[in-house]
């Protein structure tokens, strides 16, 4: 680790772990929402293909 010449900032690693987890949850629900919406809505791209 001797080459790490910038101070990564104490606490900034831990916060990445926390934010990573929170964003994971946010993405999980977002994907569910998108999936449910896709059941009711045909994507414009598909319509073009038809």
């Amino acid at each position: 680790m001797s080459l790490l010449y910038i101070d990564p900032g104490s606490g900034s690693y831990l916060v990445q772990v926390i934010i990573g987890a929170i964003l994971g949850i946010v993405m999980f629900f977002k994907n569910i929402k998108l999936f449910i919406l896709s059941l009711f809505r045909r994507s414009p791209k598909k319509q073009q293909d038809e």
Partner: protein
Amino acid sequence: MNECNRPLPSSYRDPAGFIFQYENEVYRQVNEAGRKDYDLLLQTGLYDSLTKKKWLISHEEMPAGFLSKNAYKILKPAQIPFISFPYEWSFSMLKEAALLTLRIAKTSLAHGMMLKDATPFNIQWHKGAMIFIDTLSFEEYKDGSPWIAYRQFCECFLSPLLLMHYGRISLHTMQVAYAEGIPLQLTSRFLPWRSRLSIHTYLHIHLHAKVARKNKGTDQKELLVPKNKLINLLGSLEMLVHSLSLKDTGTVWGDYYAEAANRNDYLTQKKTIIATWVEKLPALKTAIDFGSNEGEFSLPLAACSIYTIAADADPVAVNKLHKTIRESNIQNIIPLIIDFTYPSPAIGLANKERDSFLSRISNTDLGLCLALIHHLCIGKNIPFASVAAILAESCKHLIIEFVPATDEKSKQLLLNKKDIYQWYTQLEFENAFGQHFDTSEKQLIPGTERVLYLMRRSHR
């Protein structure tokens, strides 16, 4: 042969290498310590991918032994005509630099590498866009390792952008005071409470500041962030930066040009005279337009293949010019927020790390100083002699417009002044500038009392 190239004063942080100057050109030395990551940059195809997109500056490798025997490699990057700093950029320029950093980080990850720092000083304005210039900022990505430059990104880019976004005012000068980034705690405290309602702002600023403060000094080297989480983190930052804007509160000048154009073709007349004079001057390469506003007079210079610095104190005007340049893909003009009466100082280690604005523009071929003199002398009480001395340091040729005290605009400036500015006369103006310049042309702008001068710096 110079065995030990001397790094430029700003290039002392990175053990992997440094930049130095040789015969007025900038080179980058790669030290043995930087060998592995530099080789990886090329082998993984990341260098090709980034340079093809014009995100990273391209370079050529100099032959072995060039200028140094100890270096692993000496690189000659494409040369940047004018170096500028983030505190001279408008909001949208800083935003462009932030997005570029994130996109480069994402592309690096896809190639098994990552950015080891994230400061706007690694970015410059080149050929009409922001470009990443630090070839040695890339390191091997080790699976699970957090982003070492995450806090630096938040402090250097997110903090100023968010403060400007929520404050609805340009705070570019704040970056002079906090050149290494605005501390998260400070940003968190200054942002309005409603900024917490944005999940991305809450996470990257408010929560980040809180967690970092509480865990100061604890050993976190063992913490792991899986790659997909890191990609989510970058995506979240990108989404946030993308959503930020500086609300257009109107320029200081408002509809200056719309109004000025109505004055007896004032602008057209002025443009014609300047164009004729510029044509006569021998091979101009560089120009600086003081008080450029939205670039009305800088753009024609750039169109004549002159590299033009468009400097104005009004952040909104500079932002607008940046937009024009991006839309029309103009390559040789650089818009900067510069207050003539308060130009950027020299800052950093030994006051040598970042040069002052005036030292960077010294000996420009042509200076434009249009409809500015009354603002400086009547508006700010600056004597003619001081303005003349500054301009004589900056440019070899000068096109300057004298606005007499009887002009409508001067009268507006005089309205709330006690002083009657008896010294503000055309004769005094000519005397003061005569100390430094020889006038070769002088022309009254038809239909006005304003006079244009073409001057040449006299040999002292």
